[in-house]
């Protein structure tokens, strides 16, 4: 760096100091022009910039407002014909000017230009129309997909609803709602534009005299022309009927449909065909086009009904349902419980939960049904098929009901109880035998919840009574006892139980109580088997000590062999032997549509004499410790179940009872004693 005192002067320095001199060479010290002078010097308020769009009857021009010093959009009619033709243009400007809402385009000035054409100015919006956005989304434009996820689009939609709801509140209908008429600003502002077809509807108290005068000026002769956009106009517009707020509900729903499916409601080539489809409501269901929940789909389709009476009856109703859908619906503080936790989990993972629950359940249920039908013998196979058909029908009905309820109210809480109860149907599920306690406790929670919502529901009360009965909480049952015929079955059993004194609150009542309960059921008759089956299934899965259980077995066998004559049931504990005799004795255990439970495994038994009965199915011996088996004069044909009895050493049978081949399948360790 050279010293400034001896260096050459740079050009830049000279330029700068020249500039200084330049400023001061001009001695006249002109006062800064005043802003008022500026304002009054502007003769033409608007400088035309460029055309930015046009509609049917008007074009939109970008103009610079020299007074307010900003850019605006100016609308002027396209045709230059006589002044009477501009009525609708001017009416549109007056009508739009009535609307004061953040989501509705603002009118700044309405006037007449030098060419004697009417014009109005409004906000100039940067951004896109919703139509352009939807087009880009439909073309899978990655940037748009990231910028406009479905939740964002639904937010836009809620704002559109706000605007229309407001307009309806001051009796103005839009009547040309479509994505092209919605502007989305760069920062997500939503503006409803083009109120060219808008109408005022009457029947409201006067706001002020000026508004009344405006309405008088806007009254038009009924036009026979169909006005609107095919695909978004409502059937009643196609039919030329007078529009109502429900016409806008249709238009909004058509926008929602397009938002969600990225396809217009009607996608035909010709206009005539589009109008025909509109008139009959030929619209593909939204959930067939897009991966959305049935709830959302039904909200959309409800707004698109041909008959206005079947639509949402106001924009607000549509908006409320959609908001509920968007937020889920759990608000009340609950007692801490599994249900509450499940509900909150569900709320956090709504979509995934619902879908997962459904599919897992459907898969499990159908797999179970399949396995169950394989396992049953040919006789019960027939029964199972009928049952399966019935339960499929019921399942479908329940599913339909569930979907309907879900769609109508989004009452997630109630539905959850239904799901719980449906998953844990104690009388209609194969799973019961496997894990009765879980099924019962879950059903109990579902029912408690149901009754909390609706304490007088007699069906829930009845199911509650039966659930508590099977859980052996006999003392709690009377609270839920009504006059239902299903409950007559357990009345006798409950009376017996009430005669005993025992400590409550255990999983199982003392054995004598349980025995007399089964006796009570047995005395009611064979129609109590379903309940008895579940009571015993629960008992054997939960009871710790099976001493004296032969008494339960005896009662059970009496019930399941209701035509048993000359009955003999002789159990000797010391000898560990059981002798059963009598005509029409068939079942050595309990069974139900979903399976059978062999009972002999629960008592110590080495010697079984079942000769001279109608006994047939050796599967009933499963799990037992039998060493000696007497099956003379029975109807046993299939010996294969005996292979699963490890302790079996001796079978007593008659010479003619089985073919030699059948006997040869038995292991050599088993001694065959032929006798008469």
């Amino acid at each position, binding site marked *: 760096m050279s*010293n400034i005192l001896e260096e050459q002067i740079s050009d830049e320095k000279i330029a700068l100091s020249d500039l*200084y001199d330049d400023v*001061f060479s001009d001695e006249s010290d002109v006062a800064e022009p005043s802003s008022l002078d500026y304002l009054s010097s502007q003769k033409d308020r608007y400088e035309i910039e460029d055309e930015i769009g046009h509609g049917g009857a008007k074009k939109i021009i970008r103009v610079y407002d020299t007074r307010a010093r900003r850019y605006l959009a100016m609308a002027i009619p396209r045709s230059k014909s006589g002044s009477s033709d501009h009525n609708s243009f001017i009416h549109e400007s007056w009508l739009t000017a009535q609307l004061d809402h953040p989501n509705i385009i603002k009118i700044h000035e309405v006037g007449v230009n030098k060419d004697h054409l009417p014009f109005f100015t409004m906000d100039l919006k940067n951004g896109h129309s919703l139509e352009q956005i939807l087009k880009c989304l439909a073309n899978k434009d990655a940037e748009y997909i990231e910028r406009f996820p479905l939740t964002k689009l639904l937010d836009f939609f809620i704002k559109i609803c706000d605007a229309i709801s407001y307009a309806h509140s001051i009796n103005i209908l839009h009547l040309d709602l479509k994505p092209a008429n919605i502007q989305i600003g760069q920062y997500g502002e939503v503006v409803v534009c083009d109120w060219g077809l808008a109408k005022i509807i009457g029947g409201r108290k006067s706001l002020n005299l000026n508004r009344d005068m405006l309405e008088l000026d806007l009254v038009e002769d009924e036009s026979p022309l169909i006005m609107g956009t095919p695909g978004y106009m409502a059937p009643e517009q196609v039919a030329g009927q007078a529009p109502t707020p429900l016409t806008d509900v249709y238009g909004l729903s058509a926008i929602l449909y397009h938002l969600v499916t990225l396809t217009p409601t009607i996608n035909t080539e010709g206009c005539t065909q589009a109008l025909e489809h509109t008139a009959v409501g030929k619209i593909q269901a939204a959930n067939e086009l897009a991966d959305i929940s049935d709830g959302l789909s039904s909200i959309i389709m409800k707004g698109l009904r041909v008959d206005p009476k079947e639509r949402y009856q106001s924009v607000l109703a549509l908006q409320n349902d959609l908001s509920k859908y968007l937020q889920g619906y759990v608000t009340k503080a609950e007692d801490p419980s599994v249900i509450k936790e499940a509900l909150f989990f569900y709320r956090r993972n709504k979509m995934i939960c619902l879908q997962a629950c459904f599919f897992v359940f459907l898969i499990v249920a159908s797999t179970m049904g399949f396995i169950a039908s394989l396992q049953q013998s040919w006789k019960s196979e027939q029964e199972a098929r009928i049952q399966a058909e019935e339960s499929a029908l019921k399942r479908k009905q329940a599913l339909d009901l569930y979907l309907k309820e879900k769609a109508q109210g989004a009452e997630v809480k109630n539905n959850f109880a239904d799901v719980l109860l449906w998953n844990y149907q104690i009388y209609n599920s194969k799973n019961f035998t496997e894990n009765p306690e879980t099924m019962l406790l879950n059903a109990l929670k579902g029912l408690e919840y149901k009754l909390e919502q609706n304490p007088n529901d007699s069906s829930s009360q009845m199911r509650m009574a039966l659930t508590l009965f099977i859980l052996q909480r006999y003392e709690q049952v009377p609270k839920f006892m009504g006059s239902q015929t299903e409950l007559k079955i357990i009345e006798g059993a409950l009376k017996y139980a009430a005669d005993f004194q025992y400590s409550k609150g255990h999983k199982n009542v003392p054995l004598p109580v349980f025995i007399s309960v089964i006796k009570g059921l047995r005395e009611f008759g064979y129609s109590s088997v379903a309940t008895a089956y579940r009571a015993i299934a629960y008992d054997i899965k939960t009871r710790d000590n099976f001493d004296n259980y032969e008494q339960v077995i005896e009662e059970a066998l009496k019930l399941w062999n209701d035509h048993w004559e000359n009955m003999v049931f002789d159990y000797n504990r010391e000898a560990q032997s059981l002798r059963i005799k009598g005509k029409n004795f068939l079942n050595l255990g309990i069974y139900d549509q979903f399976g059978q439970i062999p009972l002999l495994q629960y008592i110590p038994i080495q010697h079984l004499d079942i000769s001279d009965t109608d006994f047939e199915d050796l599967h009933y011996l499963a799990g037992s410790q039998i060493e000696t088996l007497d099956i003379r004069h029975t109807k046993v044909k299939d010996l294969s179940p005996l292979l699963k009895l490890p302790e079996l050493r001796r079978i007593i049978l008659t010479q003619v009872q089985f073919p030699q081949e059948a006997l040869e399948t038995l292991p050599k360790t088993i001694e065959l004693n032929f006798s008469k």
Partner: protein
Amino acid sequence: MSKWNTRYTLIQRAQNSPDNDTWEEFVSSYKKFIFYMLNQMQVPQNLIDDLAQEILLNLWSKLSLYAKEKGKFRSWLTRVIRNSATDSLKKEQRYNKRQENASEVLELLENISESDFEKIIDREWRSYMVEITLDSLESQLSETAIEVFKLSLKQLPTEEIAAQMNITTGSVYTLKNRVKEKFSRRLKQLVRELEF
């Protein structure tokens, strides 16, 4: 404009009511230029702080003596800087002979004529004023407007500026003139404030 007519300039305030606030403002207004000059004159770094302080104090104490009729601000500024610097460098040389730089600068200062030195100060001060004017406008106008003006100062043709800034020649013309107008106004205002 009226704002400045009813307000005393910094110099007037320094003369009439020399308080602490005025001193602070005075220092912040001239310090930058004085430091710049001393640096450009290659005064040794260890002397600059003290010397600048001395010059500022000199200016301040002589403000009340100063009357507009006596001469131009810049000749006066020249004298104060030159005398203070010469004194300070002589003193430094007397106490510390090894300061070679100091004697070099002193030699240059003593050899340069009063009018030549004034020319340098004059030139530097004017470009300094232009620069602070541009700085103050830059914080208030769009980048494009300032850039167009700066390019026009470099005598670039309007078309070239338009191409470079990606705007119309009409816009360049309008912006150039409007910024120039604003610039002149702002420069005059600053001169009124800082020169006397």
